[in-house]
């Protein structure tokens, strides 16, 4: 296993990190993702009904007098049609977006890496079958399939995760397969085989860690896509069920009050956009940093 090394290291990860941090945009994206993650984790503390919390409102606290109220001292990002604080709902919405994004990508990673590894390592019939399966999945419009799965099996964080995982594993599978085809012919792979290691050990202990880098790049794009799709599903009313706050569901109610409630349109949209952009930028710069030609 290659471990990320410290400052003076010259391993692949240390070199990659040194190349990565040259991009100011990439650092900003990383810091942004870190911040949003912290906010998501701390959401119940930051935004709750207790007076001690930073925002002073929970995501479902109703302020009947101030419905559809523009941003002011009390509700810094305004309120929605039920008088709920938009900032509090957005803070809790970050939890949903990040959870779904990470879980769906984790699922795609596990399924994709497993199938890609088997296809690349064994070749032949296994490779043929996995390649045909990828071709079939790529024929379906992903949002069509996700919508059907979520609607028919009942919307929840888990069905969304499964719907996204089942439709997006093909990228990871293709990357892992490609890497395996390359590295299974390398000397360390022969050495492992010659020393009598079982196939499963060669695949998971020796080859997979070395195929990880390009897969992590595609995982970063995967998180971006999953967050985008989750918010689209919520916007269409088929996301994590109400009253759970999600960025997409705030935008859905914004649609009905578009004539004057501009704050409902602007803030959750900016949150989705920045988060998706951050994961896309991290993936892009990480890919550049892995490329030795960029030195």
């Amino acid at each position, binding site marked *: 296993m290659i471990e990320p090394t410290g400052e003076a290291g010259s391993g692949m990860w240390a070199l990659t990190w040194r190349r990565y941090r040259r991009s100011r945009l990439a650092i900003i994206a990383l810091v942004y993702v870190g911040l949003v993650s912290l906010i998501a984790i701390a959401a119940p503390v930051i935004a709750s009904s207790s007076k001690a919390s930073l925002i002073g409102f929970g995501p479902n606290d109703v302020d009947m007098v101030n419905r559809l109220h523009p941003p002011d001292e009390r509700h810094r990002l305004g309120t929605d049609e039920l008088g709920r604080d938009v900032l509090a709902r957005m803070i809790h919405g970050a939890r949903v977006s990040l959870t779904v994004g990470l879980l769906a990508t984790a699922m795609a990673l596990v399924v994709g890496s497993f199938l890609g590894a088997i296809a690349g390592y064994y070749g032949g019939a296994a490779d043929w079958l996995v390649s045909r399966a990828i071709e079939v999945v790529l024929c*379906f419009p992903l949002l069509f399939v996700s*919508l059907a799965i979520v609607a028919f099996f009942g919307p929840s964080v888990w069905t969304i995760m499964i719907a996204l995982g089942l439709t997006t594993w093909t990228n990871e599978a293709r990357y892992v397969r490609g890497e395996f085809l390359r590295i299974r012919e390398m000397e360390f792979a022969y050495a492992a085989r010659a020393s009598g290691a079982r196939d499963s050990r060669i695949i998971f202990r020796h080859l997979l860690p070395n195929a990880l880098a390009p897969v992590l790049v595609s995982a970063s794009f995967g998180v971006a896509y999953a967050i985008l799709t989750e918010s689209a599903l919520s916007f269409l009313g088929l996301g994590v069920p109400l009253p759970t706050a999600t960025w997409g569901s705030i935008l859905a109610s914004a649609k009905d009050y578009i004539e004057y409630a501009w704050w409902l349109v602007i803030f959750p949209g900016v949150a989705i956009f920045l988060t998706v952009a951050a994961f896309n930028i991290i993936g892009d710069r990480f890919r550049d940093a892995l490329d030795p030609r960029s030195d």
Partner: protein
Amino acid sequence: MLTYVVRRLLYGVLTFFGITIAVFVLVHSVPGDPISFYVGSHGAQSLSRPVLEEIRHAHHLDESLIRQYGWWLRGIMTLDFGNSFIDHQPVIERIASKLPNTFLLNLIAFLVAAVLGVPLGLWSATRSGQPIERASAVTSFLLYSLPSFWVALLLMQLFSVRLNVLPLFGMTSDDYLDLGAAMKLVDRAKHLILPVVTLAYAQLAVFARFSKSALTEVIRQDYITTARAKGASSGAVLWHHAFRNALIPLITLFGLSLPYLISGTVIVEQIFQWDGIGRLYFEAILTRDYPTVLGLAIATAVATLFASLFTDLLYAAADPRIRLEAR
């Protein structure tokens, strides 16, 4: 070339069966009595047992799963997707009646994206390493990260609510039928602008990125260096040697973008109340109109299959390396 074509077509047939199996498995793993796929979940409760048994028999639900798949596949092959639960019209006719609206919208969006995106990408590739190239790369990334439903809402708010120059949604105005021929055209065009922009901007970014990386790849090739070494001007090198070869990979992109266009159609048609297949699909999902959902899922997947077959063959015709490598 012929072996390549035959092989590719055979794989296409296999993929078609894969598509039908995937949909069949998915549908049969949905919890609940499969009879609700034929009479709707409400219908199943109100019917008496003998009637249910009869329906079961008529739809082959009393046979093995393999045989059920066979019957279902036979229906698909003859373009019989069954009747909608909602209006009891054949699904295939419902799809056919909405398809032109979706086609018009997507064709225009696709053309706008290609006409603007491809030259933009090629141009930024020739400015490699300059600040303008970095800036355009970041811009296309940001465009790509914008949620389309948010863009739609922003456009509606700006152009329909604040400026009041474009209609909020719909395909035509209420007084459309009273308009003269020229005004009818203007009215339709006005209704097209916002949905087209919403569909096109992300595609544009994809086209720009793709054509940029295609040209960057070509410029690295030895024959470009050779052409330069001969003393050809950089304009001539780009025009005669680089551009044409960079355009070949774009063929695959045109085939691959179909499923993305269709996915985008669901959101755009729903927001702008555009009467196409995306909206038909979404409403079928909400009303659990299974025959329409299945029919559209199969139809769009098969359309993508045909598009990818077509582009692969076109690609092989344009680039001999493909068909020779594949033997």
